[in-house]
């Protein structure tokens, strides 16, 4: 039996004792947990008192009221964030005003519990938080032990290749056995879907070819002066038909000419992938903007979009092979899960860096910095 320490900061004694009462008899189980989690609740009536307690006895979970007599809940949140304390914070709030919610989420609150809450509402919030804590601990432990939580490239690949084959085989059998009727029209959906799966498989194979090229080919003889603005324009032309279909407008802003020593094919891979992503994961009527700039020794490429964005948790694995962010918004978007890992490999080949900033539902910005001078490509 593992115990999680919960600190509740609220100026209403009724809320505090309610939380204590509900959680003292509560435990969380989860299929992968070795043991159940139970809770030990400490109470504080003000933010100042809460901070004293958490400095003395670090809690795992903080339930925080925003409206407090002295310093406010968001101030406590900021205090925790500045010190990088590993505490999961859920705000208890009677009227969740939007700006408090936004500020709190930005400062690291992960949940909101509306006041007044039923025991069930509190329990389900705590259950979610506990699972997150558990997964975080496991991940941390694995990292410490040097274990890598990564699937074998080839094995996942075989899964990705098998899924469309299974779908095709199923549809063909359906037709072979005339399961849906005797007329070809009875099979309109299976035929349409089969063609789409073939398309998906083709793009996976194209990505794989890029991927192996980067891994295997020696590049030295192909290195030449490459004007990145030109590569960008060409990539935009390639993606444009798709962008028109999606009603996304693409703008290129060349602030200064960026010429670097590189293999033009590599640069094409970078631009094609990032520009098509910024269209693919955009909204209808959205924008994709590519900015090219340079300093004395670096080319700076910025790809920003007004798309669906990525959550903070998801950005951590974004560049790994076959990672596709799965959620309601990406469900109907197809992709191989290789594009960004390919981009990252190319960028690293040139000793550059890539970073991502994103806000869900607002958009995503990728920034790439590439050294202008040739450095031995490894």
């Amino acid at each position, binding site marked *: 039996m593992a115990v999680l320490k919960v600190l509740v900061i609220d100026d209403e004694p009724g809320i505090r004792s309610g939380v204590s009462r509900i959680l003292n008899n509560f435990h969380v189980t989860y299929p992968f947990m070795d043991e159940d989690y139970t809770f030990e609740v400490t109470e504080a009536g003000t933010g100042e008192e809460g901070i004293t307690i958490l400095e003395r006895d670090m809690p795992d979970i903080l339930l925080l009221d925003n409206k407090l007599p002295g310093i406010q809940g968001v101030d406590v949140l900021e205090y925790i964030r500045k010190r990088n304390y590993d505490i999961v914070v859920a705000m208890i709030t009677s009227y969740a005003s939007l700006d408090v919610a936004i500020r709190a989420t930005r400062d690291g609150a992960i949940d909101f519990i509306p006041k007044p809450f039923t025991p069930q509402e509190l329990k389900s919030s705590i259950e979610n938080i506990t699972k997150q804590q558990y997964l975080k601990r496991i991940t941390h432990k694995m990292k410490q032990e040097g274990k890598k939580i990564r699937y074998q490239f080839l*094995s996942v690949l075989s899964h990705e290749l098998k899924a469309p084959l299974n779908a095709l085989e199923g*549809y063909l059998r359906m037709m072979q056995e005339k399961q849906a009727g005797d007329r070809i029209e009875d099979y309109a959906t299976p035929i349409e879907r089969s063609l789409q*799966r073939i398309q998906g498989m083709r793009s996976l194979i194209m990505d794989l070819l890029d991927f192996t090229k980067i891994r295997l080919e020696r590049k030295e003889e192909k290195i030449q002066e490459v004007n990145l603005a030109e590569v960008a324009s060409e990539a935009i032309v390639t993606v444009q038909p798709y962008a028109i279909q999606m009603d996304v407008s693409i703008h290129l802003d060349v602030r200064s000419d960026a010429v670097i020593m590189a293999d033009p094919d590599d640069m094409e891979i970078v631009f094609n992938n990032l520009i098509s992503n910024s269209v693919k994961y955009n909204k209808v009527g959205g924008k994709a903007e590519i900015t090219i700039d340079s300093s004395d020794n670096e080319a700076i490429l910025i790809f920003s979009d007004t798309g669906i964005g990525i959550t903070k948790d998801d950005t951590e694995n974004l560049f790994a092979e076959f990672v596709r962010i*799965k*959620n*309601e918004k990406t469900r109907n978007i197809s992709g191989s899960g290789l594009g960004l890992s390919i981009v990252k490999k190319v960028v690293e080949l040139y000793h550059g860096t890539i970073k991502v900033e994103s806000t869900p539902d607002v958009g995503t910005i990728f920034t790439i910095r590439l050294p202008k001078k040739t450095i031995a490509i490894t």
Partner: protein
Amino acid sequence: MKKSDITILVADDDPDYLFQTVFNLEKAGYKTMAVESQAEAESVIARFKPNLAIFDLMMESDDSGFILCYKIKRKYPDVPVILATAVSHETGLSFSIDSEQEKSWIRADRYLEKGIRPEQLDQEVMKLLKL
């Protein structure tokens, strides 16, 4: 019980596999409820008790199917569950429900590889429902 009185919940985020499974089950005479995600499956389970459930393993998360098995068994211990997946040995995520240890945490009654023939699926369903 007649096949036409039986409702099978099918959850799979691959629309084609979902389409085919539902098609085959309905062809065999069952009623079906099709959902495309773990979240949708959870909301169905909360309101409705199916006679049997077929879950894909990897949906929103890599362990969606395991979690659904666990949740449905907690709510309706008597509903048989089939875990269907294309994940197999080569993924390094190999598992089965043969050993006692695996049975203790994988709450599924059958584990089936995707690509199973329609007749075979019907057989498995009949066996689990003792038809």
